[in-house]
């Protein structure tokens, strides 16, 4: 049985751990609210954008001069996987589940004989993928200095990706990120961004989207202008979604940790009290037997 002083030290160390995890949970909760607000704010833009792109894409579909970003390069030999993870750990299975999904796809694509290239966003995913697939890395985007994700960050990533596309470095690009469902549930998701796929507006669903628009300048020039923006918009939406998921995951992970620490403290306290009582009983027995001996 450990002695009293050791037990006491352990209790106080677990207590301070609990304080830290509790604080991290509260910080994550505050950040989560902010991340959710940011995601909420960006939704009107993304929705309108996709509606317009849907209408546009449908009207130039099949045209031989349609932009390559929409139709693709005509091959799907080289895949670029953009794996978006967090810059920091201590957020439960958040990073691992994204990496796991990406890793599954990497193995599948390689088994099919495709070439795979990886662009990582966020340090944690890079660390996890490095061991098995480090030779496939083509770049890394570091967001550790970014406090609040802005559209400019997404634009920079998009620019990098589009530059590689123009240089024919890949045929298909897919982003990996986590969709925020609730604090306890985030779903790792893969979304193809190049070639872009926009759903044509459904007939009668939205009267505005079904209108015949005039285009100024013409459809194809607008599309050529908008498609690169579309890539940035999708990356931005994914970054925001990821940020909310990360904070949600961290919040529930830290909640668990706080609860575990509490249980551990209770257990240790009981053990501590028992040993103290044993010591007292021992002393009493000694005193009594000493008195009887007289």
């Amino acid at each position: 049985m450990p002695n009293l002083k050791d037990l006491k030290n352990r209790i106080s160390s677990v207590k301070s751990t609990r304080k830290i995890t509790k604080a991290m949970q509260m910080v994550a909760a505050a950040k989560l609210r902010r991340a959710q607000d940011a995601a909420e704010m960006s939704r009107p833009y993304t929705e309108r954008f996709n509606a317009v792109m849907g209408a546009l894409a449908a009207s130039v579909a099949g045209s031989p001069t349609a932009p390559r970003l929409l139709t693709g390069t005509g091959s799907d030999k080289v895949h670029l996987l953009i794996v978006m993870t967090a810059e920091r750990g201590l957020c439960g299975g958040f990073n691992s589940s994204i990496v796991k999904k990406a890793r599954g796809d990497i193995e599948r694509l390689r088994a099919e004989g495709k070439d795979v290239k990886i662009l990582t966003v966020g340090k944690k995913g890079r660390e996890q993928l490095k061991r098995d697939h480090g030779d496939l890395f083509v770049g890394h985007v570091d967001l550790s200095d970014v406090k609040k994700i802005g559209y400019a960050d997404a634009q920079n990533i998009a620019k990098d990706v589009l530059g590689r596309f123009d240089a024919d470095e890949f045929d298909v690009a897919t982003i990996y990120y986590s969709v925020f469902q609730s604090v306890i549930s985030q779903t790792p998701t893969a979304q193809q961004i190049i070639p872009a796929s926009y759903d044509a507006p459904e007939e009668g669903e939205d009267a505005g989207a079904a209108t015949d628009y005039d285009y100024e300048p013409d459809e194809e020039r607008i599309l050529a202008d908008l498609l690169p923006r579309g890539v940035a918009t999708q990356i931005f939406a994914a970054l925001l979604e990821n940020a909310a998921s990360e904070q949600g995951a961290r919040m529930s992970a830290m909640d668990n940790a706080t609860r575990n620490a509490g249980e551990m403290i209770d257990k240790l306290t009981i053990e501590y009290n028992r040993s103290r009582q044993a010591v007292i009983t021992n002393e009493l027995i000694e005193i009594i037997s000493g008195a009887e001996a007289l």
Partner: protein
Amino acid sequence: MADTMQFDLVSPERRLLSAGVTSVAIPGMDGDMTVGPGHAPVITTLRPGILRAETEKGSEEFVVTGGFAEIGAGVTVLAEKAVPHADMDQATYEALVEEAERAYHEVKQATENEPGPVDEAAKLLQDMVAVGGHIGLDPKQPNF
């Protein structure tokens, strides 16, 4: 015909304005246009310029750097970056011009013998510079 129409100005980061307006002046890529209620449906891309919305409470001006406008039953402007006129100061403006300038030089270096993209970037830069004059700031002179 309705006297007002719904106008939304949204950027990726937030919704800047959502109100009933009597007319909106939009800096379109092929020229400025003013849209009133009942305008034919148009989708146009934007060049850097001033966007003015006449709301019931008065007119509101925004500096936009690009994006596109969808004119249907109402008007939706999706601006990549939009700054209310009142928030626009010399420093913000210069930062925008510098960004356009940098983009221009990058394009110029990357594509040597194709005038297309370079001209477009130069136009963007000139538009950006012109914006300064419109809003009463010192137009910053870039190096071409």
